[in-house]
């Protein structure tokens, strides 16, 4: 916005229409940036939570997320870098939004912290992740070898992580 003000001084005489357009664009930008901060406050989180519960942000496209409602997130807090993405709390991944209209909304208007802040404040809305099925590629009923190996390795990683977390929590209790 400061850049806009400086440029108008340099340009000199400008027709009113152009000024209005620029004001409009700046207003939108400003609103977006304020929005990014507002949704991290208590009231903002509450309003977004209502939308989340109704599923207004769409559903996760991943089949094994079973239509988990999504949350908007930005990949960066800098405006003008990338568009808004959708975060799924079940698979902890980000997706491109389906609607074309959302491709023109900047990610910085939501910020990188929003979904995580929401679950920090409302932890009960995080779905149960103790049993997570995943897709197993098969050819005529037989599992594909390389992928099956990779998935076995991934299960090991997951089990190790569970052990680690269990140990740390136990230590904290003692």
């Amino acid at each position, binding site marked *: 916005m400061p850049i806009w003000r400086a440029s108008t001084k340099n340009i000199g005489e400008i027709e009113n229409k152009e000024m209005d357009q620029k004001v409009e664009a700046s207003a939108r930008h400003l609103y977006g940036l304020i929005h990014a901060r507002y949704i991290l406050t208590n009231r903002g989180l509450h309003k977004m939570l209502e939308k989340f519960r109704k599923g207004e942000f769409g559903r996760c496209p991943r089949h094994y997320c079973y239509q988990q409602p999504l949350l908007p997130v930005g990949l960066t807090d800098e405006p003008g870098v*990338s568009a808004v993405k959708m975060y799924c709390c079940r698979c902890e991944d980000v997706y491109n939004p389906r609607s074309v209209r959302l491709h023109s909304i900047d990610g910085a208007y939501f910020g990188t912290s929003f979904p995580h802040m929401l679950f920090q404040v409302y932890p009960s809305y995080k779905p149960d992740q103790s049993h997570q099925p995943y897709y197993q590629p098969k050819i005529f009923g037989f599992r594909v070898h390389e992928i099956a190996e990779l998935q076995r390795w991934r299960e090991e990683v997951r089990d190790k992580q569970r052990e680690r977390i269990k140990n740390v929590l136990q230590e904290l209790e003692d």
Partner: protein
Amino acid sequence: MSNSRDYRDITKGVGDLMQYQDDEFSAQYLDRAEELDWSDYEQFCDDNDDDDDEDDDNDNEGDDIDTGSEEISWISWFCSLNGHEYFCEVPEDFIEDEFNLTGISQMVHNYNEAIDRILDIEDDYHMWDEAKRSMVDQAAEVVYGLIHARYIVTRNGLNDMAEKFENCEFGICPRTGCKNSLVVPCGVSDVLGVDSVKLYCPNCIDVYTPPNRRLDYVDSAFFGTTFPHLFFLTFPDYLPPRNMRIYKPKIFGFNISEVSAMGRRMQWLRLLPDDDRDGNSDSDAHND
């Protein structure tokens, strides 16, 4: 033929054809979004109920070879319907060989009439009443789907689907970290009536529901669980270069501990053995 093709050659056209562009925020992009807006929106307005499919059948009755004005076969008509973009046209000699159709007759009622309908063999179709006609039409759809599932795992079927794949007709992976990997239709079951068709991404090895809601009416058994994997085994050049970018959740720039209640529990789903424990790549938009 596809051996010498680089994966990048195929994805050159993806940015133009597909809608998941990101990394650009400019006024011209805004215009394009508004331009595409309503046609996209209408697609989602139309999802009333199951009658949708019936309506389509009735609207296009006039295009049948029976009327003679437009010589279009049932198969071509079926594959050109809205929501049937993933189907490829099964050649008639494949259907005429009864060995290929083993077992399908037990799965569907009105099997013989359905086959006749598919092969455009004029029988008593015009003499039947509405109820019987719609039953036979539905049966024809199911039979064609099941034949299709068998056809696409044959050599010719794989080649036909390869053509569609190269034209990016199946879309791209919705996951941001996959960076426009091309996807392939996949079934989660080989049995009728379980679920609808999904899309398989070879990069993240996961299945996604297609963005077009009309595809909810296409059964998984019409593609089968085998097809995508056989497809990439046959055409290994179509496998995207491995780029696994894992999303790192942060609050105000600080990483979240895995021990906390909202820490990362699903990192293992995308991890690869060559990465570091935490995944060596960010999902930053700053990359490339």
